[in-house]
């Protein structure tokens, strides 16, 4: 538990760095966690080389879903879109630095799922993106 509520997570939850919406944007996507109603939207701007120049998220949810979104969005700044597409579950867990059970994992991975669905330009997000 102590582990789960690392200072970093509580801190990012209370003081998010990358919350917001971007308009115009090059990529936007939103989705829910069907089991709890958490919701995340991600907006991304790219330069002419498909490098992420600006990215933010919005929505609501628990500390894990919000902190992981904040950390994930932070991590993609300056990255080529192809690298964003290649992000994995492990990358997010590394950013969070904690272990999670199957239910909580869905909270942590919602932002990655949304980000990747947007990056790939999919019509619908799927759990396949984050497994």
């Amino acid at each position, binding site marked *: 538990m102590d582990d789960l509520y690392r200072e970093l997570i*509580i801190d990012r939850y209370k003081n998010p760095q990358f919350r917001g919406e971007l308009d115009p944007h090059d990529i936007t996507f939103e989705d829910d966690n069907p*089991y709890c109603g958490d919701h995340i939207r991600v907006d991304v701007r790219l330069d002419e080389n498909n490098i992420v120049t600006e990215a933010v998220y919005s929505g609501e*949810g628990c*500390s*894990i879903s919000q902190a992981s979104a904040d950390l994930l969005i932070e991590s993609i700044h300056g990255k080529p879109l192809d690298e964003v597409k290649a992000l994995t579950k492990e990358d997010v867990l590394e950013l969070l630095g904690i272990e999670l059970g199957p239910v909580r994992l869905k909270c942590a991975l919602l932002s990655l799922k949304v980000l990747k669905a947007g990056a790939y330009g999919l019509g619908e997000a799927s759990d396949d993106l984050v497994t």
Partner: protein
Amino acid sequence: MTLNEQKLAALDIQKIRGDFPILNREVRSGIPLVYLDSTATSQKPLQVLSVMDDYYRRSNANIHRGIHVLAEEATGAYESARERIAAFIGAATPKEVIYTRNTTESINLVAQTWGRANLENGDVVILTEMEHHSNLVPWQILAAERNLRLEFISVTPDGLLDLESYTELLKLDPKIVAFTHMSNVLGTINPAREIIQMAHTVGALTLVDAAQSVPHIPVDVQALDCDFLAFSGHKMCGPTGVGILYGRRELLEAMPPFLGGGEMIKRVELRSFQNNELPHKFEAGTPAIAEAIGLGAAVDYLAEIGMDAIEQHEQEIIAYALERLEEIPGVKVFGPEAQYKGGVAAFTLPEAHAHDISQILDSDGVAVRAGHHCAMPLHNKFGITATARASFYLYNTEEEVNKLVDGIYKVKKIFA
């Protein structure tokens, strides 16, 4: 006995707790389980587990068609369970008791058989704003297929059904009113008898979602005078995989079958079949035999303790829980006062999300649920996406309520 325990005189809690092996579990070393999630699913007493285990070790066989000893025993046990379940809910005959997988399947069965046979373009179905998804989506599917009109009895800010809005809706000449007997979020126990009478006055049928009522309060289908009633075994000390649809006999007899296959037929030719009699007509394929027998044992267990005593116990514990929760700064409990509700307390804290509350409570072994509890429209109505929900059953104690309260203070400290 502490003072608080003395008040809970309705049940011999220590004896009851001894029946539930899981309640002795430590979820982590030194941290005992405090199970406050019975609204999602109840725990199972030894009396139920041993009946099922014994069935598999002694009598397991497919039913109705075998002549050997095992098949006779299995058939006898399966049908005897049905009789005891029928008696438990006051059905006129066991033929009115159909085994399904769960409440959800029971409601779908009605929507897809009675509904398809009786509802058409523009017909009105009345539901309520406090329904579980299981009593919304089956009607939405049918509404899309048949172009039906769904209308909703509204919920007041304190979490009661607004019977005035219901009176208005009844003027639309509804064909059926399907409503929850007890809300799994607000805990509200709705005035089912009155709602049913009002529906019958305008000639509408009624379906009662009794997933939360049958496990927690005495329910008598003939006294309620309902037309259909649905509930799940797993929420009432029984196993997963079995639920019940009660239906009035004439209605069930007039309905087309649901699923096709073995058991539900009397005669089959290559291109046609004849239905079997009730209740088998609605039970296609090998049923959940061990589970039905387990549900029979659960009903015996509950009946032996007494549903009145269980109701009273939960009444006492929810009153105590509300009192304690309301002491905590910032806690907002949804739903009406204790006297209108069963043992369910869904709440929010301003500083922490329901998931985080649940997770931190879990670190002290306190199991509550967090989320929309399959009632998204109700949560939307209250402008929230998630609540944490503590729910109580016959085995819970005031001591456990205290642990819940301590845990909430811990959440507040972490998120301070």
